[in-house]
């Protein structure tokens, strides 16, 4: 399929900055999402993963100040009127959230919450809306949808609530689904089911997916490309294979070292020392410098920019870890994760 330069990327974020009450929490995010791709966004809690996309959709509370550019197929969303954003939300870019049980309205029936989205974005009402809602519920794996159409959130389990959230998000036939830690609040077995569901739906609908998570395993299962975020900045960006086989930013490396492994000899996990810096008192230079073993005086004074590397990845580090020699990769993506 031929694509012109203007439409190559579905969404382009440029220098996106967010501040709450004068405290800067997002320090200029540049990020592209191509049509149909699955992009992972990884980092510790509070690093700005969710804020990035809440800001892009104008969903942050009024006290947040958002600057920069958010373009959907070249059309600027940042600072556009509320009616424009309302059409984009759910219709072009849908979003699902971390805690599905409290993210669905407790006093409205599930059927009503799904048909509402169908009415806004596809003009479906009455019986037509109900039929389509039942189809969506069926598609996300809610058994006996017809009987459960009029039930309420508290009558579904957490995993089913997330399925219903996904059904609601699909109602507007979005081009991009932002999944904000969709499995964090769920049991491990349910997590796997939801991941499978997302992978299947993405393949069936061809929509793009941004998968926000702190779970690298889940990200490698779902995504082709990963952005690692730290303290409101992207610090490393590359394909899943690149980052897994040879993480170059010390923070990315730290994230991998903190994952327990089921295969191979038992080794003590290596935690990242220290804690995430308070956004009010960020270090002057690289935000990761106080926790990094490779820090030099240079790191402490000059914040690194995110620069393209020869192998196609992007990296923001003055003293990155050397590229692993081919064939001697320290870590491969477990094959069962990349089916």
């Amino acid at each position, binding site marked *: 399929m031929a694509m012109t330069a203007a439409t190559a990327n579905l969404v382009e974020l440029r220098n996106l900055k967010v501040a709450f009450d004068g405290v800067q929490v997002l320090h200029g995010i540049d990020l592209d999402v191509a049509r149909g791709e699955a992009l992972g966004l990884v980092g510790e809690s509070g690093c700005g993963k969710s804020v990035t996309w*809440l800001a892009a959709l104008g969903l942050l509370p009024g006290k947040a100040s958002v600057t920069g550019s958010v373009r959907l197929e070249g059309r600027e969303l940042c600072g556009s009127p*509320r009616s424009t954003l*309302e059409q984009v*939300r759910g*219709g072009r870019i849908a979003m699902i959230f971390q805690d599905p049980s*409290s993210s669905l309205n407790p*006093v409205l029936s599930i059927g009503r919450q799904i048909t509402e989205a169908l009415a806004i974005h596809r003009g479906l009402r009455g019986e037509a809306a109900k039929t389509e809602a039942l189809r969506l519920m069926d598609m996300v794996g809610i058994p006996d949808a017809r009987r459960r159409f009029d039930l309420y959130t508290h009558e579904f389990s957490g995993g089913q609530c997330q399925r219903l959230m996904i059904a609601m998000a699909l109602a507007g036939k979005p081009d991009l689904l932002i999944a904000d830690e969709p499995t964090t609040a769920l049991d491990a077995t349910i997590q796997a089911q939801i991941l499978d569901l997302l992978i299947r739906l993405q393949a069936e609908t061809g929509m793009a997916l941004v998968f926000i998570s702190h779970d690298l395993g889940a990200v490698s299962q779902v995504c082709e490309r990963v952005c690692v975020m730290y303290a409101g900045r992207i610090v490393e960006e590359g394909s899943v294979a690149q980052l897994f086989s040879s993480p170059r930013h010390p923070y990315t490396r730290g994230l991998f070292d903190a994952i327990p492994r089921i295969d191979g000899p038992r080794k003590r996990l290596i935690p990242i020392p220290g804690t995430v810096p308070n956004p009010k008192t960020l270090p002057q230079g690289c935000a990761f410098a106080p926790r990094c073993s490779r820090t030099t005086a240079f790191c402490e004074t000059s914040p690194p920019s995110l620069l393209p590397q020869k192998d196609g990845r992007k990296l923001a580090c003055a003293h990155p870890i050397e590229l692993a020699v081919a064939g001697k990769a320290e870590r491969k993506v477990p094959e069962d994760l990349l089916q």
Partner: protein
Amino acid sequence: MIRFVLVRVMRAVITILAVMTFAFVVLRMSGDPAEVMLGPDVPQNVIEAFRKSWGLDQPLWIQYLAYLKSIFTGDFGVSMRDKAPALQLVLERVPATLQLTVPALILKLLIGIPAGVYAALHRQSFADRGVILLAILGFTIPSFVMGLLLVLIFSVTLGVLPSGGQETWVHGILPTLTMSVGGVGILARFSRSAMIEVMGQPYIRTASAKGLKWRDVVWGHALPNAAVPIVTIVGFMVGSLIAGAVVVESIFSWPGIGRLLIVSVSNRDLAVVQCILLIVAATMVVSNLVVDLLYGWLDPRLRSPASH
């Protein structure tokens, strides 16, 4: 459901019985109707005769049993002062009281809830602070002070509204306003805090994220969730439709239940006071019952037998 209703009705009956008993005992312990009714200079034998004719010479528990028996046969006693049936005297006054309390309730709802919701949606703004300040003033100023203040402004100084009486609907304006100010303040405060709490919930973000118009997010998704605390307060207001006007009726010489209650208490007109208290307790209990049923309708979590 049947069990739920039965339990509630039983509780209601017990509450009303307790109020009746309390009123009965306290009224008889706190003063002798014969002395109050007949005055200080009446011969002892006249007083004895009065007591005998109203059954006040009997032991308290016999009087009480007789009272209960007559209540269950629909006889609410006779006024010692007017010699008319107490129930009839009381019911004659109900419309006058409702003429004040119903418009006051409507004002409270129409001003209090929207003001609270508006303040919640414009938190920390000038309007929000204004609403909070007025609400606090509204429910901290006692109604007798508010009433006198309004009389001072509109009757004495401006001379545009009458300060008392019941001749025309214009006479009802000041008492209605006086009564609604406190309720507007309370409802505004409660609606505001309920809405602020709900607007911070994840499902409101979900509603915005699916592209709903802001108006539909607020009225369709947020308000139904904020309704439970608001309905609780409104339930109290409905329950006090009959009894809530005692002070205001006295200030504005409005011939309603409140005035009747004050006159009857000072005269120790036992049957009338007991009848008023019974009706007041009954309206309070019924409105509480309705509120309980409304909870289930408003919040499906309280409806299902599986949840606690």
